[in-house]
C-alpha cells in the first residue's frame, strides 16, 4: 500500500492547527448570527422536589427579557415530553427517560425547569433567578448503596424502588474454582470518577428556517447524527428540513455524545418564536447538568493456585446511574466485561446492580467504565501477590494472555451479542518493556536508600486492554473536485483529537501525499450515514472507510489518465497533484483536468471509467472491536504525615496497532494520563446527604495542572490489527485506563512499612492519611 509519498505513519503537523492558533477557530459561542437571542435555563436547586406552578410575571417584566417557557409552553410543539436516548437493554426494569423541561417533579440539582430568552445572557440569567417556582422538597437518595435498602426513599415518586437493572456475567465453574483454591483474596473497592470538564462546555445554536425552508442547528456535540434523529423525532421534522452541524469542539471526552434536553428545548423555542437562539453552558452548569461518571462500589474475591495462577474471580458491582437514563447500561456493562480481559481466567461471575440516585445522570467519560475495571482487577492482583509473596509483576506475567493465544476468544459478549476476541498483541512483552523503562528491577535499591533518609518511595504497575473501534461503520467520501482539490466528507465527528489530520493522512497516502490539497469536513449529517465520535472508534472505522474510498479514487484517477495519456495505468504515478507517466518528463495531467474529463461530455464516452466523477463513498463494516493494550508503571513519593502523593516518574508501554501519526498518538496518551492522574489523586464530585453538589467550581474540583505532571515516558509497540486493512486500533482512552491503578499500586507500595491497603480512588491527602491511621501507622 506504500505509494509515492508517505503520509501514513508519519508525525506530520496537524491540518487543524493554524486556525486554532491564530484565534480563527469557530467554536459554538463564536457563531453570532444577526438577531440572535440568548437562552438561560432555570434549574432545580433541589435534588428532589415537586412543583405545580411557575410564576413568570416578575421575570417577564425585567429589561431585555423576551419570553419564558416552561414544559406547558413547549409541550404543544413536541411529539414526546421525554427524550428517549438510552441504548436498548432487556435488563432495564424502570423507565427513567428525562423530560425536555421538568413537568412536575425535579430529581437532581441542575435539572432544567424553564427556559428564558433575553437580549443577552446576563439578562436571561437575571430573569431565570426571578422566576417563582413553588418547590416542595421531597426525600433524597444520595448514596447508591443506601438506595437499595428496602426502606429507602425513591428517586422518582412514581417508582417504588431504585434498582434500574440487575444483570450478571458468568462463565466457567466459579464455585469449583473457589472450593479447593490454595489462596482466596477478598477486597472491597470504592472507585470514583468525576466529571468530563472539557474546557468548552456544551452549547447549541438554532436558526429558524432560511429561504430554502431549512432549520439550521449547530451543537457542540460528539454525535451530530444522533442529535438530528432526535430533533426530527421530537419536533416532527422531515430530515430534509433540518441541517445539524458541529463547529470546532473545545473537547468532548464522552458526555458530549449524549443528546441533551437543552438541545431540544432551545431548538423548539427558536421555532416557536422564529428567532435564532443560542444557549452556551457555563462552568457551573457543566458541573450540575452535564453527564458525569461518579461512583462504583465493588466487592470482589479471587481464587488462586499456590503458584499464583488465577482460578476464578467473583463478586458484585453497584453502579450509580444518576436520576435519568442518558445513555443506558453501557458503563457498568463495559466495566464488567473489562475486568478479566487481559488475563487468562477460566471462571468469572459478577452480579451488577445499576442504581438510581438523585444526582445528575451518568454517561460515558473517557474510558467509559474500563478505568474502574482496571482499578479493581489490578488491585486484586496486588492483593494476591502480597498474600502469596510474589513480585507484583510476576503474578501478572504468569496470568496475562500470551501472544501465542492470539486471536484469543473470550467467553464474554459485546453488548451487540458478538464474542469478545482479543485480536493481536504481546501483552507480556509490553509489560516487560514498561518495567524495563521504569527501572523496576533496580527500584528496591532506590526505595531502600530513600527510606534511610526517611522518605517513602513506591512503585506500582497496571495492565490494561482497551476495546476500541466500536462498529459497525462510519461513512467517508473522497472526491477529486473540478478544481483539483480533494474533498473528504465524513460523519466522523472531531472534538480536538486530530480527526481531520488522521483522515487527510490516510487519503493522501493513496493520492500523492499532498495533505495541503485536501479539505476534510467532519460531522456531516446530510450525506453520511454514521454515528460520530466515541469509544476510540474513528481511526478504526472512519479510517477503514477513508482508506477504501481513497484506493477507489486512485484507481479512477489512474484509469482516466491512462485513457487520456494513452498509457497503461501501471506505468503511471501521482506527483504534485498530477498523474504522470513514470520516467517521462512533461507527460502528465493535473488533477483538475482529470476531474473535468471524468465528468464526461455530451455524446462522448467516459474516459476509462464506467461511472462519472472521481469520487467514492464507502462504509467499511467492522463488527468486531479491536483491542489495544499496555502497561503503566508509576513511581511516587508519599508523605505519610500529610498524605500527600508526589508523582516522580510515569511510564506507559502500549500497543495500538499501526499508528497513523505517532505524534498524535503521544498526544492522546499524554492527555489520557493527565486525566487518569486526576482520577487517581484529585478529581472528586462531592455531594452532601441532600444531594447538593459541593464541588461546582474549578477551585473546588481540581484538574491537574502543569505543576502536577511528572515526566512521562511512552514506549510504542505495534501489533497490527487483523480486523482492518490498515492494521490500526484506537488509542483515545488508553492513557486514562491504567493510570489510577498504577498510582494506587505505587502508593500502597510506598506505605508498605505501615501495612496500608489502598481500596479507593481518588486518593486525596485525607484518604491517604486515614489509611495510614487505620493501619495503625505511627507517623
Amino acid at each position: 500500500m506504500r505509494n509515492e509519498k508517505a503520509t501514513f505513519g508519519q508525525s506530520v503537523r496537524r491540518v487543524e492547527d493554524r486556525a486554532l492558533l491564530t484565534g480563527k477557530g469557530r467554536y459554538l459561542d463564536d457563531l453570532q448570527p444577526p438577531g440572535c437571542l440568548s437562552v438561560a435555563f432555570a434549574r432545580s436547586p433541589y435534588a428532589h422536589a415537586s412543583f405545580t406552578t411557575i410564576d413568570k410575571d416578575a421575570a417577564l417584566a425585567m429589561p431585555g427579557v423576551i419570553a419564558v417557557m416552561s414544559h406547558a409552553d413547549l409541550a404543544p410543539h413536541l411529539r414526546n415530553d421525554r427524550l428517549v436516548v438510552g441504548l436498548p437493554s432487556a435488563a432495564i426494569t424502570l423507565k427513567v427517560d428525562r423530560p425536555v423541561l421538568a413537568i412536575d417533579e425535579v430529581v437532581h440539582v441542575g435539572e432544567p425547569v424553564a427556559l428564558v430568552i433575553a437580549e443577552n445572557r446576563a439578562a436571561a440569567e437575571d430573569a431565570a433567578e426571578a422566576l417563582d417556582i413553588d418547590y416542595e422538597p421531597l426525600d433524597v437518595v444520595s448514596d447508591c448503596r443506601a438506595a437499595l435498602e428496602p426502606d429507602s426513599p425513591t428517586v422518582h415518586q412514581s417508582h417504588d424502588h431504585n434498582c434500574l437493572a440487575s444483570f450478571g456475567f458468568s462463565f466457567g465453574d466459579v464455585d469449583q474454582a473457589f472450593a479447593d483454591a490454595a489462596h482466596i483474596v477478598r477486597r472491597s473497592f470504592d472507585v470514583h470518577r468525576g466529571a468530563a470538564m472539557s474546557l468548552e462546555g456544551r452549547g447549541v445554536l438554532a436558526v429558524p428556517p432560511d429561504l430554502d425552508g431549512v432549520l439550521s442547528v449547530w451543537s457542540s456535540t460528539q454525535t451530530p447524527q444522533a442529535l438530528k434523529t432526535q430533533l426530527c423525532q421530537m419536533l416532527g421534522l422531515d430530515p430534509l428540513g433540518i441541517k445539524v452541524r458541529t463547529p470546532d469542539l473545545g473537547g468532548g471526552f464522552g458526555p458530549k455524545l449524549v443528546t441533551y434536553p437543552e438541545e431540544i428545548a432551545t431548538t423548539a423555542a427558536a421555532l416557536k418564536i422564529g428567532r435564532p437562539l443560542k444557549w452556551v453552558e457555563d462552568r457551573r452548569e457543566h458541573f450540575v447538568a452535564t453527564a458525569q461518571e461518579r461512583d462504583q462500589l465493588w466487592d470482589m474475591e479471587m481464587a488462586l493456585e499456590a503458584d499464583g495462577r488465577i482460578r476464578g474471580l467473583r463478586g458484585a458491582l453497584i453502579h450509580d446511574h444518576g436520576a435519568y437514563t442518558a445513555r443506558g447500561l453501557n458503563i457498568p456493562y463495559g466495566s464488567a466485561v473489562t475486568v478479566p480481559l487481559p488475563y487468562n481466567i477460566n471462571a468469572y461471575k459478577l452480579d451488577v446492580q445499576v442504581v438510581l440516585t438523585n444526582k445528575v445522570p451518568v454517561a460515558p467519560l473517557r474510558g467509559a467504565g474500563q478505568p474502574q475495571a482496571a482499578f479493581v482487577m489490578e488491585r486484586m492482583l496486588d492483593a494476591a501477590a502480597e498474600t502469596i509473596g510474589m513480585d507484583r509483576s510476576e503474578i501478572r506475567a504468569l496470568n496475562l494472555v500470551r501472544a501465542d493465544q492470539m486471536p484469543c476468544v473470550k467467553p464474554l459478549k459485546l453488548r451487540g451479542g458478538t464474542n469478545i476476541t482479543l485480536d493481536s498483541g504481546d501483552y507480556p512483552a509490553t509489560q516487560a518493556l514498561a518495567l524495563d523503562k521504569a527501572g523496576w528491577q533496580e527500584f528496591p535499591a532506590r526505595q531502600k536508600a530513600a527510606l534511610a533518609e526517611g522518605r517513602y518511595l513506591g512503585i506500582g504497575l497496571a495492565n490494561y486492554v482497551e476495546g476500541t473501534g466500536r462498529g459497525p461503520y462510519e461513512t467517508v467520501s473522497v472526491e477529486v473536485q473540478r478544481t483539483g482539490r480533494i474533498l473528504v466528507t465524513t460523519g466522523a465527528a472531531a472534538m480536538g483529537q486530530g480527526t481531520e489530520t488522521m483522515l487527510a493522512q490516510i487519503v493522501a497516502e493513496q493520492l500523492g501525499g499532498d495533505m495541503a490539497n485536501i479539505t476534510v469536513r467532519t460531522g456531516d449529517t446530510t450525506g453520511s450515514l454514521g454515528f460520530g465520535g466515541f469509544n476510540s472508534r474513528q481511526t478504526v472505522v472512519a479510517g477503514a472507510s477513508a482508506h477504501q474510498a481513497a484506493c477507489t479514487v486512485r484507481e479512477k484517477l489512474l484509469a482516466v489518465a491512462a485513457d487520456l495519456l494513452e498509457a497503461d495505468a501501471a506505468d503511471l504515478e501521482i506527483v504534485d497533484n498530477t498523474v504522470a507517466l513514470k520516467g517521462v518528463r512533461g507527460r502528465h495531467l493535473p488533477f483538475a483536468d482529470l476531474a473535468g474529463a471524468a465528468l464526461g461530455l455530451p455524446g462522448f464516452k467516459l474516459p476509462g471509467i464506467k461511472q462519472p466523477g472521481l469520487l467514492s463513498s464507502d462504509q467499511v463494516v467492522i463488527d468486531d472491536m479491536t483491542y489495544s493494550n499496555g502497561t503503566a508503571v508509576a513511581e511516587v513519593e508519599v508523605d505519610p504525615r500529610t498524605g500527600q502523593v508526589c508523582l516522580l516518574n510515569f511510564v506507559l508501554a502500549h500497543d495500538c496497532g499501526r499508528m497513523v501519526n505517532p505524534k498524535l498518538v503521544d498526544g492522546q496518551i499524554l492527555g489520557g494520563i493527565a486525566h487518569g492522574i486526576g482520577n487517581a489523586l484529585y478529581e472528586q464530585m462531592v455531594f452532601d446527604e441532600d444531594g447538593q453538589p459541593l464541588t461546582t467550581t474549578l477551585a473546588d474540583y481540581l484538574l491537574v495542572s502543569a505543576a502536577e505532571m511528572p515526566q512521562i515516558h511512552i514506549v510504542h509497540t505495534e501489533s497490527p490489527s487483523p480486523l482492518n486493512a490498515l492494521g490500526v486500533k484506537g488509542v483515545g482512552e488508553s492513557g486514562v485506563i491504567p493510570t489510577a491503578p498504577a498510582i494506587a499500586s505505587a502508593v500502597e507500595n510506598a506505605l508498605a512499612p505501615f501495612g496500608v491497603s489502598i481500596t479507593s480512588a481518588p486518593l486525596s491527602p485525607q484518604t491517604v492519611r486515614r489509611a495510614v491511621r487505620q493501619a495503625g501507622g505511627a507517623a
Partner: protein
Amino acid sequence: MERHPLNLTVNGKPYAVETEFRKTLADTLREDCGLTGTHVGCEHGVCGACTVVVEGKAVRSCLMFAHQAEGMEIETVESLEKEGELHVLQEAFAEHHALQCGFCTPGFLMLVKGAVERGEELSDAELRHLLSSNLCRCTGYQNIIRAVRAAIDTFKEKASAVPEAAR
C-alpha cells in the same frame, strides 16, 4: 441595564463600543469587538482560557470589567500572526503538538508570550509554575512545556541573528 460608551485599544486598534458596567473584558472583546479568539472556560478566574495581555501583563479577562480597561493597551491572540507569518510561539505549538481542541490555546499563548519575547531563562520548575496558571484538559501539558522551551530558544536565536546596528 444601561449601556455606557467605552473606548478600548485592542491590538493597536481603537474600538468605540457601548457596554454595561458589569460586562467583563472577555465578553466585550468577544461580542463587541468581534475578537472571538479569546475564550471563556470558567468565568471564575481559574482556567485561564480568557488570558489576554493588558499593559504588558497577562490578565484573566473574565475577572476584569471592560470599563476598567479603558485607556489601556490590550493584546489578544489575534495580534500574534503578522502578515501571514506565525509568531515563533505559534510555530512551536504546531510543531510540538501542544494543542488538541485548541480551546485553551489562546490563553496559553498570551500567558507565556512575555516570557518568550524576553527570552527568559526559566528552570523546569519555573516554567511549570508559570504554565500552572492555566488549565488544559486535552494535552497533559508535556507538549506545551516542550513548545514553550523551543519557542524561547528560537526567539533568542532570532534576536541574536539580527545585526547589532538593526537592534
